[in-house]
């Protein structure tokens, strides 16, 4: 079982909202499945609580509507925040809370996000988000190095196991 699970979520038909899927493609090329599992989904659903219950650290990659286009943010989250049941969507900390309730404990987790510029219909990223993509991938790898065991810490961005 890998130590990490990367949950890349967003709508690939909504321009920059699909950036997490693009990042996941790049991460698959540099990360061994024995280190990190990668899950691409359109939205967070309760079943993801089961997926993250098996790992030590979960990384959620998402596009953000906040910040200057292309700006990367990395935020540690935990399962302690009180959840508010939403109608049709869940947040990463709600997934962590559900994981804790149903499976007894939840992993530590990080949200890595990039501020989007365009969320209209389309399958291409805006120029600012396209440019930010390598840095987004590097940020995810840095999180893995920060929380990983010694063998994982030895990886360098773009020069990991593969």
């Amino acid at each position: 079982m890998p130590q990490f699970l990367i949950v890349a979520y967003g709508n690939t038909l909504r321009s920059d909202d699909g950036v997490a899927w693009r990042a996941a493609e790049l991460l698959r090329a540099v990360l061994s499945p024995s280190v990190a599992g990668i899950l691409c989904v359109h939205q967070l659903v309760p079943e993801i609580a089961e997926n993250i219950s098996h790992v030590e650290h979960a990384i959620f990659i998402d596009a953000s509507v906040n910040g200057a286009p292309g700006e990367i943010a990395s935020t540690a989250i935990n399962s302690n925040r009180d959840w508010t049941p939403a109608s049709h969507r869940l947040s990463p900390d709600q997934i962590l809370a559900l994981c804790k309730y149903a499976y007894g404990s939840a992993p530590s987790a990080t949200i890595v996000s990039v501020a989007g510029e365009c969320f209209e219909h389309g399958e291409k990223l805006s120029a600012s988000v396209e440019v930010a993509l390598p840095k987004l991938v590097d940020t995810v790898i840095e999180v893995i190095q920060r929380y990983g065991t010694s063998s994982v810490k030895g990886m360098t961005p773009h020069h990991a196991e593969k």
Partner: protein
Amino acid sequence: MSKTITIDPVTRLEGHGKVTIQLDEHGEVADAHFHVTQVRGFEKFAEGRPFYEMPSLMARICGICPVSHLIASAKACEAIMSVDIPHTAAQLRRMLNLAQMVQSHALSFFYLSSPDLLLGLDSDPANRHIFGVAQANPELGRAGIGLRRFGQHIIELLGDKRIHPGWVIPGGVTEPLSSTKRDEILGMIGEAYSNIKLGLNWYRQIADQFKDEIEIFANFPSLYMGLINEDESVEFTDGALRLIDSRGRILEDGITATRFTQIIGEAVEPYSYTKFAYYKPLGYPEGSYRVGPLARLNIARSMGTPLADIELKQFKQLALGPVQSSFHYHYARIIDMLYGIEKIEQILTDPLILDKHVRASAGVNRLEGAGQAEAPRGTLMHNYKVDENGLITWANLIIATGQNNNAMNKGVAQAARHYIKGGQYTEGILNRVEAVVRTFDPCLSCSTHALGQMPLELQLINPAGEVVDVVRRG
């Protein structure tokens, strides 16, 4: 002074609807209606499209049960093509449809309805959702999550996507099953059995606490319809329809999709965008009937799988004839899931399941075709007409929710009359009225569902149309 109580939207449904309860001058319930407030325009904008595009187009109607639309649509197209699909393709479709049924029922029972059953219909609405279930009974929460994952993962393995897989096409499926995928699905069966048995045992323990609701939740005689095999066992994908009356007597048997279009009519009521299906020989509303888990078990002599057959015997003991209370949809839904897991295991041991012949091909050989299948919540029918070039000139869909529409409305009125006295009501009473609708698991927009509490506004309106009181939650 008469008043109207409005529950808008009804929570924990797939889609958006509302309930209005009309009170008379004494505060007693004069009438009640369940309104579907969304418009579905798929039949109209399908016109002009090539018929072979219809399965993937029509599947977009629904994010919960796209597989049922894929299958009913593909079968309607195959009627236009005049082809029988290969045995292996039929078996693979059957497995896909059953996987969808399991995941959809897991959503309905564990995510949307079990909060009422576990925490109580009068419990704090802030806790009535899957989070509250997982907190109060982690094992039950895990079982629900596990069963939903089980169904969704099979759909993903077969069709490459959990939602809107494009694998089912007119003539069969695009690709055969690999031995690797077969073995992966077989490897998931054991855990699925554990989860459904846990859910079943839990339901058996708590069902007796709801005797009052069993009496009141859409408990009345009606007709029932569903797909059935020649040996009178439950079927979801092929077979033919059987229609029985409230005493269990067969009114129609061996109903093909073409015959369905001849004997089932659709009535319109001014308060809902969803039509009201009825059996034409009896007229509307006398010919209204119920479909879905309760109906499937009422019309069948057996499930066709060993464990589900044991449960069917228990189910049949709930009444001398057909089981009439819609509260028992919950139990029937669990038996459906058990059957689905058993049947998927059986299908995977079919010696031809890895056969490479999974697709028949043909052009337009008829100018009209109809196809039917069981969606999780009941019978679904697609009917298309095409021109000589295979372009759609007319389409009609009769969905399960429309076939249950009259029963849902009668059920809402029955519960409202029982619980609301002298114009007095509580949140728990409103939740009971909503819970009647939830037993049917209606799919309103066929694309969305609510996990927890949604904003609800209840209005008291006087005969002049003035709002005299408003209660909001959420």
